[in-house]
């Protein structure tokens, strides 16, 4: 497989070396012209900025991706079964596979939804699974499951579109998997669970960091992009308010906001971006929400530890893709291991996301490590510890030269009538050398991912 990889890279560099370097500026101008943005809030200010990107794609062989694909399908299927079970019979808890206390303390677990089963029993419609490739064994390792509102898919779609215009040679000469079909996957999933009516994408609005993506996907999926007050709930049914005052029934909502904000009548009463009454409509089975409410429990970093057990429990299979070696200080023996090895571990706060709350033991002073131990001891459920994975660098063309940067990979998996893995994904790289944090919200950049065959 390594030989294939090398051969694919060789083919890429053969073509790249013949390209005019000025085309890279053209690439950037094109991305700027189309305002392909990932906005930031810094010190309370809204900063509109284009997401830093690199023209050198990550290349994954079709053969290698095929294994990733099977592993992701297996994982998402198990996660969906876990959520459906957890909110209905909770057999996995009753049988002690996942400790009840662990579930109940997960901030994303919403006991109010116990007993409710969504349309077609699908909860994990759109999933962003973060992986890295371990240099020790050349295996892909799962770092995180994002089953709430994973973002980022529009960026590779946009960069690929630009790539094809500026560098058509690559696509003429190499066997690169096409990726345009991703919005149709989501559309298909929305149609599959639709409860009667049109499809809409619910956005918090223009000043959300991923507004570009909301707008892009809505357009590509032929769905209406709406803000909360453009929807109305009447008799437990959701309606789209057309410009002329007509009301059109909504059957499926791809919501781009968290549970907490989705309905001020049910969750946070101060939410201005939610739709009052939408939860009632959802519970009445009159509208599908993508993703389901309550999924946060499954992408809790603590629950992540149990995913391989879920795969065995629900599917009777061995996991195809492995988790990073993870320890739960909640378990006494794990706490002991964590305390004895804390300086070489990565400690994560389970309630945080987007690269926040991630502490690298090797970067901390003795005093900081002692303080961390005290915090872990006081609330062991709040933390997980992982072995530091030395994942591969990717070549990035930065400041007119090639540089190595740590890069992860977010794969997108869509569950509708079947489970589809997009033959692409978001490769995120750290802007500084040696940095392991690649998240866009941490200032990381992105690049295209090419699934290729010889």
């Amino acid at each position, binding site marked *: 497989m390594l030989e294939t990889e090398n051969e694919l890279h060789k083919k890429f560099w053969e073509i790249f070396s013949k390209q005019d370097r000025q085309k890279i500026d053209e690439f950037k101008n094109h991305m700027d012209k189309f*305002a392909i943005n990932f906005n930031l809030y810094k010190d309370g200010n809204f900063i509109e900025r284009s997401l830093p990107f690199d023209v050198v794609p990550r290349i994954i062989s079709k053969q290698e991706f095929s294994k990733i694909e099977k592993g992701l399908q297996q994982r998402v299927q198990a996660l969906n079964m876990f959520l459906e079970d957890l909110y209905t019979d909770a057999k996995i808890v009753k049988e002690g596979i996942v400790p009840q206390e662990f579930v109940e303390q997960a901030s994303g677990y919403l006991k109010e939804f116990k007993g409710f089963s969504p349309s077609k029993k699908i909860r994990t419609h759109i999933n962003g699974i973060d992986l890295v490739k371990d240099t020790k064994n050349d295996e892909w390792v799962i770092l995180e499951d994002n089953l709430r509102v994973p973002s980022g898919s529009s960026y590779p779609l946009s960069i690929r579109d630009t790539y094809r215009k500026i560098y058509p040679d690559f696509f003429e000469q190499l066997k690169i998997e096409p990726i345009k079909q991703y919005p149709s996957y989501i559309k298909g999933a929305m149609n599959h669970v639709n409860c009667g009516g049109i499809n809409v994408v619910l956005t918090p609005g223009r000043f959300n960091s991923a507004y570009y993506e909301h707008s892009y996907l809505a357009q590509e999926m032929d769905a209406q992009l709406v803000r909360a007050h*453009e929807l109305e709930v009447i008799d437990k049914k959701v309606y789209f308010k057309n410009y002329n*005052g007509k009301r059109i029934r909504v059957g499926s909502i791809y919501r781009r906001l968290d549970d907490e904000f989705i309905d001020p009548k049910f969750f946070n009463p101060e939410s201005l971006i939610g739709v009052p009454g939408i939860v009632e409509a959802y519970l009445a089975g009159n509208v599908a929400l993508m993703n389901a409410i309550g999924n946060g429990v499954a992408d809790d970093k603590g629950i992540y530890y149990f995913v391989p057990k879920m795969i065995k429990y629900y599917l009777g299979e061995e996991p195809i893709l492995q988790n990073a070696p993870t320890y739960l200080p909640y378990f006494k023996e794990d706490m002991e291991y964590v305390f004895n090895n804390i300086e070489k571990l990565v400690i994560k706060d389970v309630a945080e996301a987007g690269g926040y709350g991630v502490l690298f033991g090797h970067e901390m002073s003795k005093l900081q490590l002692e303080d961390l131990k005290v915090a872990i001891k006081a609330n062991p459920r709040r933390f997980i510890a992982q072995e530091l994975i030395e994942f591969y660098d990717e070549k990035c063309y930065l400041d007119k030269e090639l540089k190595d940067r740590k890069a992860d990979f977010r794969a997108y998996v869509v569950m509708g009538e079947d489970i589809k893995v997009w033959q692409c994904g978001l490769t995120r790289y750290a802007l500084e050398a040696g940095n392991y944090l690649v998240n866009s919200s941490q200032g990381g950049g992105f690049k295209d991912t090419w699934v290729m065959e010889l």
Partner: protein
Amino acid sequence: MEQLLTANVATNLYWLGRYIERTEGTLTQIMVAFDQIIDVNKNAGVELYENFSTELAYDSAQDFLNKAMFGDHSANLTAITGYARENAIISRNHLNAQAFGEIIALHALFQKSSNDLIEIDYKLIDNAHSLISEMWGEISKTEYKRISDYFLRLGQLVEKADFNFRFDENKETGIVIIEEIHKILQSLDEDKVVKVEQKQTQELDYEAIINDIHQRIESLIVN
């Protein structure tokens, strides 16, 4: 012409059409005044900006260009194209992608020019005109079959009518523009049929007609 649209998108498309047309109309007027200031009428810029309710002072044709385009007044073109850019971002999922790109490029062009120390000249205005033409060209490819295009076109025509009224231009053209506006309004809301009788053309109360159009547009978009 079946197409769903939120009131917010409809409003933003309408204003996008207005701001782009306003930019184009202003640029045209600026070039006419610039030409006159050189050796015909030094006061042409002052007279032009009185129509925008703005007092403009300059000491040369070149200085006029700078102050007309980027001065601290309500007709500042960086600000106007900034509003257009915002409208385009909000309604981009109903816009042709190329047309969207031209709007972003237009604002970036003005922003860069207003920040640079280099002198502004006719090339900047030519570039801006080209971007605007390309934008309308891209939009016209759909032959104005979609409701979203109608709102954009409506904004463009209302602004044209406003310019026509403001600059006391050819009345016949004004009538044609207003008739086209009414056709679009009729298409968008068939319950509210509006007609302009030909016999009215000689004694047209432009201000009343434009106010009436504004009211109809307001009642057309239900927030």
